[in-house]
């Protein structure tokens, strides 16, 4: 197997805080790789470094054989990396359908002129985008929310819409920031099912941050535990859960 994403000795400092400190890991093509760790461990910061919202102080990120840090933040989606956010970042005042169509932005083929006049080409592009979006809607069973405004949707549905929007970009790698936070048991089960589906049917590699260890053990191939920006343990979910450093990070030192 080849590494799709390779993070090498990554560090970022905000003032005196070392949010991420010398983190290295490889995500293999087709696996589900999970970052765990207590609050403030630097998991989301790693995500923000990969999606180029932050620039690292040191280290390298290589995606599909090319250095990622040479790219601007808006180019990341075009390379095939999609993401969701911890505190859902949807386009609140647009419908679900519009949100998903925005997810097709990297696939646009029309210029401003053909859009202003809505030429036959623009029309065909719209239909093609809609067809792609409908496949995702069907996969994630969002049919009955299609024309709803996001602001009127319940939290669980918004989570799914955000996942759908990320899938609409047709990514190679998807970054899921706490996909099951705020979901009930049943919705969380659905999420596990979809993560599995994404990998098996769509061949998407998944990198996620997650606290729910049931979900983590169910879907992850490998887990990286972090604390205070540093790597604690890397291995299978069971191995990492048994690791004394991880137990200590969560529960404190044994008395």
């Amino acid at each position: 197997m080849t590494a799709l994403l390779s993070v090498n000795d990554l560090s970022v400092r905000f003032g005196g805080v070392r949010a991420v400190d010398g983190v290295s890991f490889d995500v293999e093509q087709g696996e589900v790789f999970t970052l765990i760790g207590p609050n403030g461990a630097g998991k989301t910061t790693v995500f923000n470094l990969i999606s180029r919202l932050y620039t690292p102080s040191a280290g390298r990120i290589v995606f599909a054989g090319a250095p990622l840090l040479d790219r601007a933040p808006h180019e990341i989606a075009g390379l095939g990396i999609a993401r969701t956010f911890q505190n859902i970042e949807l386009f609140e005042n647009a419908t679900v359908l519009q949100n998903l169509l925005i997810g097709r932005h990297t696939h646009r083929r029309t210029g401003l002129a053909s859009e202003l006049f809505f030429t036959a080409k623009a029309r065909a592009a719209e239909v093609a985008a809609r067809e792609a979006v409908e496949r995702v809607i069907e996969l994630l069973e969002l049919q009955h929310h299609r024309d709803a405004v996001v602001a009127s949707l319940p939290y669980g549905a918004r989570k799914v819409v955000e996942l759908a929007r990320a899938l609409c970009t047709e990514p190679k790698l998807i970054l899921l920031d706490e996909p099951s936070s705020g979901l009930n048991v049943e919705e969380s089960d659905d999420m596990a099912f979809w993560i599995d589906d994404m990998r098996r049917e769509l061949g998407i590699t998944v990198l996620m941050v997650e606290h729910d260890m049931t979900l983590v053990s169910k879907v992850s191939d490998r887990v990286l535990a972090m604390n205070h920006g540093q790597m604690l343990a890397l291995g299978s979910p069971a191995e990492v859960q048994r690791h004394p450093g991880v137990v200590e990070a969560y529960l404190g030192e044994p008395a």
Partner: protein
Amino acid sequence: MRFLFKTSYLQDIRLVKHGGQAFWYGALVLALLAAPWLASEYWLAQLTFVLIYGVVGLGLMLLSGFTGLFSLGHAAFLGVGAYTEAVLAGAGWPFPASFAAAALVAAATGVVVGLPALRVRGIYLAIATLAFAFIVVEVFARWESVTGGNAGKQVQALRAFGWRADADVPFYFVCLAVAMLATLAILNLLRSPTGRAFVAIRDSEVSAQSLGIHLARTKTLSFAISAALAGLGGALYAHKLKFLSPDQFDILQSIDLLLMIVIGGIGSVHGAFLGAIFLITMPQAIAIAKDVLPPALGQAPGLQGTVYGLVLIGFVLFEPLGLYGRWLKLRTYLQIFPFYRRGMFRRQKSFLKSDRLR
């Protein structure tokens, strides 16, 4: 109540969604085409102003309502378009050429103003555009060789290849054509990737960027299109008033424009025109009311400003979606009579509420 059974994606893409819309918008177009023969000269002039302000409003609506960038200096773009048209028409350019130039010069100005917009947002952007507008008005006043300064500038009648639109009726049709084409272009843009990118930036910049939208380029584009529409409106405005002076494009004009889209209904294309109707008819309504009101109230200075302020406060408090939002509620009430209930349009506070636990 109408039920739409959709059998093709084109039904969602089409601008006219069903027969009812085709009928009513068709009727509106026919009425507008027949207006010169139906309306008196006075009301035709008012209607012309509504169309001109509607075009400017469309531009500001695209910028503020759809891209979420507030401009307190939009009158400056109006002025740039107006003076460009006045100067070029004076130099003998035919109308299509000078009109396009007015849009281009205004768009270029928009790009210049758009550059700071990449760094500041919200109230700071509003202040930056306000400062820019002051500079532009100052330029209009001081650049006397071109603009005529504070003494003002006469504008020649609209001319193109031997055809003159100095009478009210031909000029009305020019304005109508421009307004209809501008509306169509904006509607097309809004159902395309570019328009959706604007909406994405309005609602969440961070996720717009993570979906591959180039923030700087898209915001600049929004400024350019918005300014171009203001420039087109300005060119028509110049021909309508036939006289330009810098004080027509001051801060009060900018506030009027913002007031127009807020009252019309922010985030809706209808809102631009509904706001324009409000802005144009309100002074007339106040003038009529002055005769009816007791003299102590009717002759009081500042009546117009007070009424404007009250209306604006009323809308912000009770109808943030403006006249268009009010119309949507009225239409829903009629469509589902007698099943309308209070609070149907109220946003649910559904955060952290799960779908299946309700």
